């Protein structure tokens, strides 16, 4: 079953038309990556799916249900998790408080994750529990942003450029954390990246955006088998 379906997505900021008929599916339990250069429309895609700004035409389905035009907080409560590119950690809140905020996304049966459960998944965050969000490093903030999203037990996680702005060794740590996360928890991942090697460590499916249009969709294997794709769409 398809966890997230995007059909004929057209997005606009003011009078500029950013996304053109973007369409793709993300199957339940898979990790899809949206690749593209800066300005290709990755973040706009996420904001359009999450209904956070752009005017949108088209259809967005979450596990088969039409959620086009649903306000963001309801989307979050229906299982759509969003980790923005700039992380948006609450600088004035402690790490634990930031994590508890993620619990508001949770409204179905069961309960949101407790901070301790999160610390089991992200041992690096544990010693920082009392630290204020504004005092964390970029890598720590990225981990916290992902963790905060997980607290609400999302069925789909939109993860926007987790490697951006991180030193290679820090990005490596984040990647390791994400990989162990994929093994230990159960959710569908849609990742936006321009760092191909980072993305390929997590991806099972690849979609490529260029100038607001989807130009390639396929499995990771098919994408890897055609090196011309990378040079054509992704090299700088």
């Amino acid at each position, binding site marked *: 079953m398809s966890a997230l379906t995007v059909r004929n997505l057209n997005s606009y900021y003011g009078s500029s038309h950013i996304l053109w008929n973007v369409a793709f599916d993300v199957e339940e339990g898979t990790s899809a990556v949206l690749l593209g250069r800066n300005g290709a429309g990755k973040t706009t895609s996420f904001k359009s799916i999450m209904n956070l700004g752009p005017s949108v035409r088209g259809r967005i389905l979450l596990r088969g249900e039409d959620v086009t035009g649903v306000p963001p907080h309801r989307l979050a409560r229906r299982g759509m998790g969003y980790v923005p590119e700039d992380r*948006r950690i609450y600088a004035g809140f402690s790490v634990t408080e930031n994590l508890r905020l993620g619990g508001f996304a949770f409204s179905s049966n069961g309960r949101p994750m407790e901070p301790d459960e999160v610390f089991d998944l992200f041992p690096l965050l544990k010693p920082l529990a009392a630290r204020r969000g504004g005092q964390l490093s970029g890598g720590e903030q990225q981990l916290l942003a992902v963790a905060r999203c997980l607290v609400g037990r999302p069925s789909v996680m939109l993860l926007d450029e987790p490697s951006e702005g991180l030193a290679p060794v820090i990005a490596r740590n984040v990647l390791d954390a994400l990989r162990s996360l994929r093994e230990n928890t159960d959710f569908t991942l849609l990742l936006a990246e321009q760092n191909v090697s980072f993305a390929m460590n997590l991806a099972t499916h690849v979609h490529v955006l260029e100038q607001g249009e989807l130009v390639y969709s396929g499995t990771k294997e098919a994408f890897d088998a055609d090196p011309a794709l990378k040079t054509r769409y992704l090299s700088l």
Partner: protein
Amino acid sequence: MTFDELVIVTVNGISFGFLLFLVAVGLSLVFGVMGILNLAHGAFFMLGAYLAYEFGGAAALSLPLFILVMIGSGLVTAAIAAVLEAALFRRIYYREHLEILVFAFALIFVAEGAVRLQWGPNPLIMSYPEGFASSVSIFGAPVPEWSLLIIVAGLVILAGLAFLLFRTRIGYVIRAVAEDSHMAGALGLNVGLVFTGVFALGALLAAIGGSLVAPTLALTPQLGLLFLVQAFAVVVVGGLDSIPGSLVAAIILGLANSFLVFTFSGWAPYSFYLGLIVVLLLRPQGILGSRELTKQVG
């Protein structure tokens, strides 16, 4: 200036400061969360005063009854404000400052007309609660009891607000929305509901301020503009998004006004405007604020 006068002028200044704080704190709260300067606050202030008269009447009430009247007036005003927010204000947050300011200003006009319709154009006089029309002696100086009550009310409300914002789940949500409403929505917080609630809370505080002022002056339909510029000065001088800043600024401006009235009374009416100008030119974010107003905020 004798010692007695010093005591009276100081107490009056602090009392006026707390009154201004009560009127201004809602402005500051709403700005901190929604980023808009809500001039309609003046309308809620006036409504609070008139509703206190409506519920309490002209005769002197006992203090508990007056407090009940004040709370009733605040709740009704808050309910009206909640409806206004959900029906109207919500649609204009993303507009230019000018439109938001004029929009709110227009609501003061509407309130003025509505008050005329409901209560007529003639001034209404409300009594002080029983036993509060006179003065008590502090260090031998006679100080109006009502001034002291306003100070007490200001402290109570300050404590209540601090408790709400920093010790409750509601406060946690409000602070999260104030810091980043965008992300708060994506995390599942109902930002719209928080906006409505904060807007209503601001109106409640304004109405309580209005009820507390009601016995001290004649109520007229122009009341909405009376303290508006002063309240405005308080929040700007204190820092638009800072509640402690509002308190500090309110007390500084209240005391300055009180002392000027006594010493160079010709200068007193200028004090608020001069305060505004000096702060905006030298420290645009206000005494304790963090948001630089020189930049376009919204």
